[in-house]
């Protein structure tokens, strides 16, 4: 499995629809401070089911929806789609390409889709269980957080090992 494409619309600073194509190997994302690089990591984490606003650096879940600039009005919803190449069959579905979509409205209502079919958050989380990817996985290291492995209490360090074991 690998991440083929990321589509973001209305999520944090992405007021325009943005599509990013990925390949195997290493893709580097560069740009000035505050341009939106870490927001991309947040978008991936959110689409995989992250429920804590604090992990997404906000105060409430609504903070992920584009809140406007001095020249643009706020948007009414945020939407992120991950398209994964599943030709190696790692994900428990017969599709060779799997798309996962998450949408949230200002009203607080959320929608989830797998291959454009409505589903529950639970379905997305279950699909990624045991892959190391997903909300409790260790595959997304946020900015400034790599040293946390050393400063954690030894109990929470244990949780990471259990996830991997």
């Amino acid at each position, binding site marked *: 499995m690998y991440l083929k494409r990321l589509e973001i619309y209305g999520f944090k600073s992405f007021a325009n629809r943005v599509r990013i194509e990925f390949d195997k190997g290493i*893709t*580097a994302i*560069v740009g000035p401070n505050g341009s939106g690089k870490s927001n991309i990591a947040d978008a991936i984490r959110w689409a995989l089911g992250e429920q804590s606003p604090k992990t997404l650096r906000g105060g409430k879940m609504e903070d992920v929806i584009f809140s406007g600039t001095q020249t643009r009005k706020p948007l009414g919803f945020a939407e992120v789609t991950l398209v994964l190449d599943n030709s190696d069959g790692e994900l428990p579905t017969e599709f060779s390409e799997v798309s996962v979509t998450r949408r949230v409205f200002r009203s607080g209502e959320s929608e989830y889709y797998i291959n454009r079919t409505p589903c529950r958050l639970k379905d997305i989380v279950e699909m990624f269980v045991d892959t190391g990817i997903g909300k409790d996985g260790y595959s997304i290291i946020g900015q400034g957080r790599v040293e946390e492995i050393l400063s954690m209490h030894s109990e929470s360090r244990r949780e990471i090992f259990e996830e991997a074991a």
Partner: protein
Amino acid sequence: MEERFSQEFELINQHFQEVFSQLFGGGTARLLLEDQSDILGSGIEIVAQPPGKKLQNLSLLSGGEKALTAIAILFAILKRKPTSFCVLDEIETSLDEGNLDNLSRFIQEFSRDSQFIVITHRRNTMQVSDVLYGIVMEEKGISNIVSVRLEDRAS
């Protein structure tokens, strides 16, 4: 259950020692169970000794040594249980040029099995990447993506 955890723990431990000495160019490192009598509940302690230095409290390591040790643990876990893709957001800001070179080559090696998406300001990391994307705000406050060639990025 206990049996299984101990085996896994031992494997991650071996990987930690390998990756640590690869990234530091020597030295030793290991993970210890704080309480051997309670395998399933005990906390995990980290011991790290850069090459040529005496064994000391982890807190006395330098900023760069701490970051590199944490990275070694991360890759030890990834070696034991690879994930198909991995996102790393500026993990190398405190590394000097020498250690960064080492780490970039290590990630390049690792990327044969796993896909990496790395957010970075450092040139060495850009140089080992297959594709480079720039995130810019042509309109203030609004993110857009552009394709970037390495030569365009002034160091």
